[in-house]
């Protein structure tokens, strides 16, 4: 039997039983649509997470104080824990200099009231070192970053985030060379007429960062960068300690080596022989990404499994209706056999009919899935997720639909093919 005849006959029988065919396809349509939509949204979410992690800077190895891998409550009693210091950073720079991309140390100085040009604003102050632009892949829109000299002499200089600058000086105004006043109020809070003390410090603006947008829901453009030393001595008073040291590896492939090297340097400096009892934690951005990908991947698999189950149910529906169809068309099968149809002719005819049902169902499912992603994109919270139905997803969906047609259509088709011509002709 020519394949064209099989297709024509399959299509005819699908069209003749429009309602039944539509209802039968529904299971496959819903299954494929949910798989398509869920995988698209899931992939989009994981791409977004990845982009956001990388927007903090790429190939980063981060050192934080304290051992997050062990129970410090038990261990801390015996081991004298040391803080991370600027000297640690300098040591990393000195010992690993040629093998790493860049390094910087950060010390948060908390939120301060900022006043400039008669405007008030509240912003986060972070002490950083001169490696910051390189480590974070973050250039300046105007002015220059502060220098190593500024860090050495704890100069009162600041680089503003673009949002901060806009709020203090107005949109599009270059804040370089202006002076800002940081102010922190102690005591009182809501207390009426209490003993309030305020610290007021002046900073000179030397530059403004490029706008970066939001990461994980937080604006990264509302911050003020000052030299780490200035944050330590002038703003927080905690001399010499830093929250984090961030090393940028030379390349993604070098991250494991860099992680090991940084660990070695710090263990040596802190005089710790057992890495398990280190008083710092080194995190590798690749590991973070992998962990996040695992989470989103698990989520995607879970959603796809739900779709898979509805595909299975859809497949059983196909099988059921094909068995009914074979039964109804017993006489037709007898007639076809009487004029010379072989087993495989009947088999292909019914198999193609089943594949036609699941194939059309698959295509409608892809369209419905695409429709769902369009709707999801209208949800404000999901507006930034790069939802994309890839050619691969579509190919897999079509493939799976056809496979369901084959798997669940095979048994009914085999039953049809095995019918005895005379018994089929005598069937009422």
């Amino acid at each position: 039997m020519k394949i064209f005849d099989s297709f024509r006959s399959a299509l005819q029988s699908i069209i003749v039983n429009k309602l039944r065919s539509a209802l039968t396809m529904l299971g496959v349509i819903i299954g494929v649509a949910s798989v398509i939509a869920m995988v698209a949204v899931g992939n989009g979410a994981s791409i977004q997470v990845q982009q956001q992690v990388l927007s903090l800077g790429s190939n980063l190895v981060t050192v934080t104080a304290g051992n997050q891998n062990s129970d410090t409550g038990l261990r801390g009693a015996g081991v004298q824990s040391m803080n991370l210091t600027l000297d640690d950073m300098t040591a990393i720079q000195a010992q690993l200099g040629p093998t790493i991309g860049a390094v910087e140390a950060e010390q948060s100085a908390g939120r301060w009231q900022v006043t400039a040009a008669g405007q008030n604003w509240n912003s986060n102050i972070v002490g950083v070192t001169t490696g910051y632009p390189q480590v974070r892949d973050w250039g300046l829109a105007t002015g220059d970053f502060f220098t190593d000299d500024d860090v050495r002499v704890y100069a009162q200089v600041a680089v503003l985030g673009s949002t901060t600058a806009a709020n203090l000086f107005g949109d599009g105004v270059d804040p370089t060379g202006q002076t800002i006043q940081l102010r922190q109020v102690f005591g009182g809070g809501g207390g009426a007429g209490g003993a309030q003390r305020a610290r007021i410090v002046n900073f000179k603006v030397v530059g403004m960062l490029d706008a970066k947008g939001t990461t994980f829901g937080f604006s990264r453009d509302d911050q003020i960068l000052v030299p780490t030393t200035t944050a330590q001595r002038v703003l927080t008073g905690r001399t010499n300690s830093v929250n984090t040291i961030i090393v940028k590896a030379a390349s993604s492939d070098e991250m494991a080596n860099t992680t090991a090297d940084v660990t070695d340097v710090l263990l040596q400096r802190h005089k710790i022989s057992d890495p398990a009892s280190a008083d710092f934690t080194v995190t590798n951005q690749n590991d973070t990404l992998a962990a996040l990908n695992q989470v989103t991947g698990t989520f995607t698999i879970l959603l796809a499994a739900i779709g898979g189950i509805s595909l299975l149910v859809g497949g059983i529906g196909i099988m059921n209706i094909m068995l009914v169809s074979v039964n109804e068309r017993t006489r037709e099968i007898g007639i076809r056999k009487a004029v010379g149809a072989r087993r495989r002719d009947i088999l292909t005819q019914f198999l193609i009919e089943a594949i036609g049902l699941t194939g059309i169902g698959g295509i409608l499912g892809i369209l419905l899935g695409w429709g769902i992603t369009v709707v999801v994109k209208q949800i404000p919270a999901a507006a930034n997720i790069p939802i994309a139905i890839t050619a691969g997803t579509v190919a897999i969906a079509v493939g799976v639909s056809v496979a369901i047609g084959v798997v669940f259509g095979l048994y009914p088709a085999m039953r049809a093919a095995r019918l005895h011509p005379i018994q089929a002709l005598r069937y009422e």
Partner: protein
Amino acid sequence: MSAAAPSTSGPVIRLRGVTKTYRMGKDNIVQALRGADLDVYPGEFVALMGPSGSGKSTMMNILGCLDVPDSGSYVLAGEQVRQLNDDQLAAIRNRHIGFVFQTFNLLPRLNAIENVELPLVYGGSARGRTQRAKDALAAVGLGERMHHKPTELSGGQQQRVAIARALLNDPSIVLADEPTGNLDSRSSAEILSIFQRLNDLGKTVVMVTHEPDVAEHCKRIVRMRDGVVSGDELVPQPRRAEDELRNAGAGQSVDLHSGTITHVPAAAR
């Protein structure tokens, strides 16, 4: 258009001691054929007669390779049918045998052309398929109603569609199980005239019938009883259906010399 008999001397159909038993449940066993013998030679026109239940249809199904005997031998054009598998039997049904049923057995969803095309869907060349189907329909006098579905045709017309289908692959043997059983006498005569025409062209025809009138159109009458052949006689002077139709003033004119049957539309009912 020649009867493709492999040898003019030997029989094209040879049954020897053929048995067929139907089992319906444990105790209900029907011996439909109990050792039937039959020889049919190329170019014969045989009527198969006998009381109801005597095994005529069972024998026809075996002759048509729709069924196989339990025992005994069936040699078709020199080939032992019992040794053939399902697909080989299908190929024989497709190429060498045209089968006409009492109940027409047309596919209700297909129109006349599509029904007639069916054997070519499963064998032979697809080229010119539709044209061949149209020619076959014209040859049985249905040139006008080719696009009608079976339900839109009379019984006689449906049977002519079925005959056109049976003839499409130019088989050497035409088997018909009570082809006129569901038809009035005028339609029966039309069908008979087609079969006689085919026989004139050299095709071997075997036809089951209950009516002596119908059997008198054949060249030979084989009688069955209780699953065996019980009588065999030649018809000295077979009646000609087309003469009867002409005498009855029917709208059939037959051109014996060119071997085509033409339908006169004005007389079409």
